[in-house]
Every structure is written in structure tokens, then in C-alpha cells.
């Protein structure tokens, strides 16, 4: 049976990886493991001119490192991510693929000049982790405001939605799993 592998990229704040385990297992019905190897150094993805990390490179690196892994891989990083045409991304995923990466960098209120809110940060990270992994299962953005697959380009959007899939997305996920 396939499973989900969580891979820390860079220095992850302590509870961030373990807190993802339960919601991910509940949503996707798969076992969630954490990579036992030491955290990956993402220097290879760093772009000095933007002072950001290229998320697509991180995904490529994960695929390379875990080429024999049968399941989905989610890289979790505290660094600011980008793709060349966009100013930033909260995460990136291979649509209907294997790997995804999610960043906590812009999920903390302190980034926006507000007092830090660790609990809110955790909630946002869970939502974005489910969201990016959802893409690897082939789920597209959902029009349902409360669905975790609703597109969010700002933290306010993330706060609006829940951490669960809506009924329709759950059905799509079930159909896709059945086909597999």
C-alpha cells in the first residue's frame, strides 16, 4: 500500500512536521511517515537575486532522492518559495504526480508585520499541506469557498477555507483512488 512521506527541507520548527500527520492521514486515508534522514539543505534551489528558493527545483530534488519511493512526497520548508514568473508561491505540486512542496514562510503573521500567531500558522500550514498533496492526487482548484482545494493566493484566503475537502472533491479523490 502506498503512503505519504513528509520530508523536512531546511530547519523546520519542531512541531510542524508531526502536526501534519493526523490531518493528512484523515484526508487521504494513507499512512503518513516522516523521512528519517536528516533535513535536506536547499542551497541548490536558492536564487540570490530574489533571495528566494525555486520550488520546482526542490520538487525535482525530492523526486531524485526518493526515486524508488511508491507514494506521495511532501517537502516542508520554512523558506520563501518562488517560481520564475510569480513573485512567490505558498507551495507547488505536480498535478496528478508524485511530489509537492509547501512553505511556512509567508504563513506566519509576523511576515505581515503583525504579532506572531503560532497556532494560526499551524492551521495555515495544515491547509496548504493538504491542498498541495490534493494536487498530487489530481484535484484541481475548487469553487467551494470552504473547501481546502479552493485557490488561495493570500493568507486571508487560506483563513477563509477549512482544512477538509468538500463533498465533490472527496468524491473525485475516491474515484481517482479507485482507478489506481
Amino acid at each position: 500500500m502506498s503512503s505519504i512521506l513528509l520530508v523536512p527541507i531546511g530547519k523546520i520548527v519542531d512541531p510542524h512536521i508531526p502536526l501534519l500527520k493526523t490531518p493528512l492521514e484523515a484526508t487521504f486515508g494513507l499512512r503518513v511517515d516522516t523521512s528519517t534522514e536528516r533535513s535536506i539543505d536547499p542551497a541548490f534551489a536558492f536564487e540570490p537575486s530574489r533571495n528566494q528558493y525555486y520550488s520546482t527545483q526542490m520538487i525535482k530534488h525530492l523526486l531524485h532522492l526518493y526515486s524508488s519511493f511508491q507514494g506521495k512526497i511532501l517537502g516542508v520548508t520554512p523558506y520563501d518559495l518562488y517560481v520564475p514568473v510569480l513573485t512567490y508561491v505558498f507551495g507547488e505540486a505536480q498535478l496528478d504526480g508524485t511530489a509537492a512542496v509547501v512553505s511556512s514562510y509567508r504563513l506566519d503573521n509576523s511576515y505581515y508585520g503583525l504579532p506572531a500567531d503560532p497556532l494560526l500558522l499551524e492551521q495555515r500550514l495544515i491547509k496548504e499541506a493538504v491542498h498541495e498533496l490534493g494536487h498530487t492526487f489530481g484535484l484541481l482548484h475548487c469553487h467551494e469557498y470552504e473547501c481546502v482545494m479552493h485557490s488561495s493566493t493570500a493568507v486571508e484566503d487560506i483563513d477563509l477555507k477549512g482544512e477538509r475537502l468538500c463533498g465533490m472533491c472527496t468524491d473525485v479523490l475516491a474515484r481517482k483512488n479507485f482507478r489506481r
Partner: protein
Amino acid sequence: MTDTQQPTPAVLIVDDEFVVRDSLSKWFREDGYRVETAEDATHALKLMSAGPWDVILLDIKMPGISGLELQKRLVEIDKEAIIIMITAFASVESAVQALKEGAFDYVTKPVDPDHLSHLVRNALRQKKLNDENIRLRQHISTISVTDELIGDSAPMKKVIELAKTVAKTDTTVMIRGESGTGKELVARTIHAHSGRRFFPIIAVNCGAVPESLLESELFGHERGAFTGAQHRRKGKFEMADGGTIFLDEVGTIGSKMQVQLLRVLESKQFTRVGGNETIKSDFRVICATNRDLEQAVKEGIFREDLYYRLNVFTIFVPPLRERRNDIPILATYFVKKYAAAMNKPVTEISTDTLDLLIRYPWPGNVRELENVIERAMVLAKPPSIVQTDLPFQLADSKSHPTKDTLSAIECHHIETVLHRTGWNIARSADILDIDRATLYNKIAKYGLKKP
């Protein structure tokens, strides 16, 4: 998930950099869009055949044909597509140029994802509205043209041809014809084929409005202009702004209104009743009458100057009895119309019934025919209309002489007169201008019996 009821929006990305194409296409695919990418103008032009594309994201700077040049060519192929320009550096000149050429917007790389997401959503909304607008306009033009003049006879073809020819101009049209021949339909056909078709056609039945109210009906009135004028009201001329005003039964209007009408037709300006403000309105005039206006002019009932102002282009609508070969087409049209309206599966008219319809003189013209068919449709048992479904005067086979001999016609005529007078012998003899004894003899001769 994406709403499966809606067609998937299609996005075309044209950029020479692989990473841009790659990341943007991934990003849009996650949103459920259909995405294709092109690395240069040649490929983009080829992909246009795989469209239509709702949104095209176009890099301004590309080797070979530049984005600006490509934009022009893409618009030539599909002017409905919404183009968003992407620039590496915020170059005001090129962005201005792109917007002048009709680009929806432009963004600089790297793009804020929040901004891009809103921009594309707005672009799609705009596209949807544009498409809907085009569709509705087409729909309206089909609707306004569908209820067209029907007729295959030479005189009716001539009417249709004249109506369509004069429609293109702004000429005042006078439609002449007996009551019920479809003068309003001719007016509506002219309007529907004119450049004014997206504006209203306002019909005023001048004969149906009392003279005292016609002024306020046509020009509107201000609050308090007369007793009962509680609100300002727009007149028909004001409502017809941009469109057409159809003055039905124009021959019935009184001399005072004729003067006012003449002035409005010449200046296209008027004031509301009880108002001082001069109102301008751009309307085309179509009028109709079944009166002998020439005679009315001679008698001094109708102003000569107004007559010449209205009688610029005249269309005569022939009475139905002069175009009998249109009767089957019209009858079938009305059967279909009422079958749909009454949800009744009546689809045909029996041959002998149709024969009867063709022979009847139709003093009330098409309107009478329509009413006869409507009545018959109520009575008819599916699938066809038979003689007994027609009103008495039509269905009675005796109402027409069976032969063309003089005695057959005499018999028929006497019977008709007797029927009309309720078998009053004295009155019938009077009408027939024969004495009563002769009438009795003829009744006996032809074996006529009181019903």
C-alpha cells in the same frame, strides 16, 4: 471542483522562456483551465486553430516576431480573445502601445499571484459578458425578424421587397391597406431590418386614443400639467428615441394635432404638455392608414402639408382576397402558432376546409383568417381541422353557390338575404327589390325552407 456545467476556460501562453511557460501552465492547470503554450509567434499562430482561446498571455519581447506584432495578428484571427501582455521590464511605451492595440491589461514579471489570479478572473468575466452580449444581440435580431410577413404571392413578395429596401434608409414610410391586412407587421418588418432594430419600435394607435389625450400620449406631460397628471410621463416620441415610431390610423387625427405632428416631424423637437424644456428625439416615422387620405385632403379634413410629409414612400398591402394563394400558407402558419400556444397536436387542415378558406372573400383580411383559425383550433379534434370547426357562415356549404348558373346564384342570394333578415319576408323582399309574392314564388321554386 471546477463547475462541470461551464465550458473549461482555455488559456494560451506565449513566451520564449521555458520556465515561464512551464510554471504558468502548471499554475493555470491547477485552476482547471485548458492550457497550451507556444514558444514563439509561429507556434502561437498555429495554435490559434486549436482555439478559441479565452485568454492569451503574451510576452512582449520575443525573438523573431515581437509580442506587439503578434498581438495584431492574433486579434485579426480572433478579435474576441482577451490578450494580457507580460513584460520583463515595465516599459511604459510598449505597455501603452499594447493597450492601444486592444490588450486587456499588462503585467510585469514576476507577477504577484494574487494579482494574476484576479486579473485572469476579471478577463474571463469580461469575455463571458462579451460573448453573452454577442449571443443576445444575435438572438434579439432573430426574434425580431422571425415574426415576419408571410406570403408567397407576387403582390406580397413585392411588399416584402419594398419593406426590406426602405428599411435601410431613414425615410418616412406610409403603409396603406384595408383593416387587418397586417400593416403593423409591415412596420415591424421595416424596423427589424433597419439600423434602429436594437432600439424600440413604439406603436401608437391614433384612432384608439381620444383627441384630448393624444397630445400627452405622444409628447408626454409634466407633473400637474392637467388634472390627474400626478407624475411626469414620457411621451411616445421620447420613448422612440433611437428607434421607430409607428403611427397607426394616422388619418383619424384631428386638425390641431395635425399641426403639432407636422412641427415635430420637421424639427424632431417638442415640449411635454405643461413643460418648457425642449426635448430632442431621434426617431423614424412609419405611419399607416386605411382611409382615403387624398380624398380627406381634398375635403380639407387632412392637412396637405402633413400629407406630403408622411407620404414619402408608400407601401400598399393588398387585401387577402387579392392574393388567395397566400391563404394556405397563412392558415398553416396560424395552425402551427396556435398548436404551440394551445399545446394541441393539430397539424393540418382538411382539403375541403382549405378549399372553403380559399374561396371565402375575407372582408376582415388576415386578422379575420387568424381569428377563424384560432376558433377552429379550439374546436378541432387532432390531428386536423375539418369544415365543422369553422364558424357557421364559412362552414355552411350552402353559403356558396354550387354552380355558376344564374338560377344557382339567385337561389344562393335569396337564401343569404333571408338568413340575414331572419326570414323576414317583407324586409327580404325590400332588400331584393321584388314584391313579396315574387319572393314567395321563388322560395317555392327553389324549395327553400325556414331553418
